[in-house]
C-alpha cells in the first residue's frame, strides 16, 4: 500500500510539473515573437493607433511574468480569451470543433486495437513463417505512407473504382449522428493504418516474448490448449504492457488528425488551427495548442496510473 501511494504521489507531481511546463512553453512560444506581437498580428497596413489599442487589449504593455500568471489563471478556468479572427471566445470555438477531432481519434483508436491484436496473435504463433512475414512487410509499407497521401489514394480508390461519391461530405452531429459517424470512418481509417503497423509491431514482439515464458510453458504442461493460453495469459499480459504504447499512439492519432482533416475537408481542430495560423490569430492559436498538449499530458498520466494499477511490477520497479 505504501508503494502505491508513493508511486501515485510521485506521478502526480510529475504530471503537475509537466502540465506547468507545457503551459509555460505555449505561453513563451507566443511571447518571443520577434518584434511587436500586435504589429505582427495586424500586419503592416495597420495604423499606430490600432496597434496600440490591440496592445492594451492583449495586455502586452504589462510585464511578462504578470502576463503569464494572468494567462494561466484564466486558462485554468477554461478562458483563453477572445479570438481576433472570429471574434468569439476561444473556448467556444474549440468546443464547437472538438466533436470531429475527438470522434475521429476515438474511431481510429478502436480500429487500431481491433485490428492489431488479432493480427499480432496470429503472427506470434509462428514467428518467421509466411503469414508473419507477409503481415510484417505489409506493416512496414503502411508505416511508410504519409497519412494525407494515403487518404488521397483511398479517396481515389473509393470514388473511381468503387464509385462511392459520399467521400468528403460532412453532417453535424446534432443534425444526423449516424451520418456524422459514417463520414468520420474513412478519415479515421487513414490515420489508423500507420498506427496499426506500430501497435502491431510492438504487440507481436511482446506476445512472442510471453509465449516463450515460464508461465506459458507451465500452462501448456497443465494441458491448456494453445488458444486458451493465448486468451488467458498472453493477451492480458501484452495488453498491460501495451498501455503505454497505446497512449503514445493516441497522441500521435490526435496529431495526425490535424492534417487528415484537411484532406477530407472536415471542420475539426486542425482546420481551426490552420485558420488561426494563416490569420495570425495568436490568442486562438495558443488556446488550441495548450488544449491539445494538456490533453496529451493528462492522457500520459492516466495511462501511467492505469498501467501501475493493473500491473504491480511497474510501481514496485520505481520504488525498489
Amino acid at each position, binding site marked *: 500500500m505504501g508503494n502505491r501511494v508513493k508511486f501515485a504521489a510521485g506521478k502526480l507531481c510529475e504530471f503537475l510539473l509537466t502540465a506547468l511546463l507545457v503551459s509555460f512553453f505555449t505561453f513563451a512560444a507566443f511571447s518571443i515573437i520577434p518584434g511587436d506581437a500586435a504589429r505582427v498580428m495586424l500586419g503592416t497596413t495597420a495604423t499606430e493607433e490600432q496597434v496600440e489599442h490591440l496592445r492594451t487589449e492583449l495586455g502586452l504593455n504589462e510585464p511578462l511574468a504578470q502576463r503569464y500568471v494572468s494567462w494561466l489563471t484564466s486558462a485554468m478556468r477554461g478562458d483563453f480569451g477572445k479570438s481576433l479572427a472570429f471574434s468569439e471566445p476561444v473556448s467556444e470555438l474549440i468546443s464547437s470543433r472538438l466533436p470531429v477531432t475527438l470522434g475521429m481519434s476515438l474511431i481510429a483508436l478502436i480500429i487500431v486495437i481491433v485490428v492489431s491484436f488479432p493480427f499480432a496473435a496470429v503472427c506470434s504463433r509462428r514467428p518467421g513463417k509466411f503469414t508473419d512475414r507477409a503481415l510484417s512487410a505489409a506493416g512496414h509499407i503502411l508505416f511508410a505512407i504519409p497519412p494525407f497521401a494515403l487518404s488521397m489514394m483511398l479517396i481515389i480508390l473509393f470514388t473511381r473504382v468503387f464509385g462511392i461519391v459520399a467521400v468528403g461530405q460532412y453532417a453535424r452531429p446534432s443534425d444526423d449522428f449516424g451520418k456524422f459517424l459514417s463520414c468520420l470512418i474513412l478519415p479515421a481509417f487513414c490515420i489508423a493504418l500507420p498506427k496499426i503497423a506500430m501497435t502491431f509491431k510492438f504487440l507481436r514482439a511482446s506476445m512472442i516474448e510471453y509465449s516463450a515464458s515460464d508461465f506459458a510453458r507451465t500452462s501448456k504442461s497443465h494441458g491448456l490448449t494453445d488458444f486458451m493460453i493465448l486468451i488467458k495469459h498472453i493477451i492480458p499480459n501484452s495488453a498491460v504492457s501495451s498501455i503505454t504504447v497505446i497512449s503514445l499512439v493516441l497522441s500521435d492519432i490526435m496529431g495526425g488528425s490535424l492534417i487528415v482533416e484537411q484532406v477530407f475537408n472536415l471542420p475539426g481542430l486542425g482546420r481551426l488551427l490552420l485558420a488561426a495560423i494563416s490569420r495570425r490569430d495568436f490568442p486562438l492559436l495558443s488556446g488550441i495548442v495548450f488544449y*491539445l498538449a494538456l490533453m496529451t499530458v493528462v492522457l500520459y498520466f492516466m495511462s501511467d496510473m492505469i498501467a501501475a494499477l493493473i500491473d504491480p511490477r511497474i510501481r514496485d520497479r520505481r520504488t525498489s
Partner: protein
Amino acid sequence: MNLARISKRYLIMGMTLLGIVLAFFLIGLIWTPYGINDTDAAAKLLAPCADHLFGTDNMGRDVFSRCLAAARYTLLVSFAGVAVALVLGTVAGLAAGYFGGITDKIIMILSNSVMCFPGILLALVAVAVFGPSLYNVIWALGLVFAPTFARVYRSGTIELMTRDFILQSKVMKVPPVRLMYVHILPNLMAQILPAVITGLANMTLFESGMSYLGLGVQPPAASYGKMLSDAQSYMTVAPWLIIFPTLILVFYILGLYFISEWVRTSVRGGSQ
C-alpha cells in the same frame, strides 16, 4: 530462414529503394527535362506519356521535372533536421545519463514536456510565430525530434556507467567530456544508428505533412507535400499527380526503414 539471410534481404531492398531516390536527387540537381515552374497551356493535366513521363498538372507543369527537383528538399530537411536533433539530443542525453540526479530530472522533464505536443503541433507553432521558411522548418523539427535521441543516449549512458572501464576512467579522473567522447559515444553507436535512420524516415513524414499544409518548403521551390496539396482538387481526374510524388516519398521512407531493420538485425546477430 536464418537471421543473416533475412538481414541481407533487408539491406538489398533498402539499398535498391534508396538508390532510386538518390538517383532522382542527383539527376534533379543537374538536369530536369522541363523547368519546374514552366507552364504549358497546351498540355494541362496530361496523362503520363513519352513527352511527360509522369504527366502534367493543372498548370501544364511537368510532374517528372518537379519530382526530380523536389527530392533535394526532402533529403535536405530530413538530414539537416536529424542533425539538429542529434546534436541537441546527444548533449542532453549524455548529460542526463552521466550526471544523473537533479540534472537528469530537469532534462527528462523538459524533454517529456516537448514530447507532450502531439505530432507536428510544436513545429506548426514555430512556423506560425517565425514565419514559414526552410530554416525554421529544420530547426523546429529538430527540436521536436531531439527528445527521442536524448532518451536513447540517456538509457545507454546509465547502463554504461556501471561498467568497470567507465568506473576506472572516473577513478583516474578523466574529464567528463573526454570520457563521454572516448568511451560512451562509440559504445552507443549501435543503439543510436537505427534511431537516426528511423528519425530520417519520420522527419520526412513530418516535413511532407508540413509542406502539404503549406507551412513547409515554400514555392517557387517544388516539394512533394506541396505537389500533393496542389493536386488535391484534381485527384480523381488526374491520379498520376498523387501517385508519383507519393511513390517517391514511400520509396525513401521504406528504404530507410529497411536499412534500419538491417542494422538492427545484423547487430543482434553479431552479438549472439
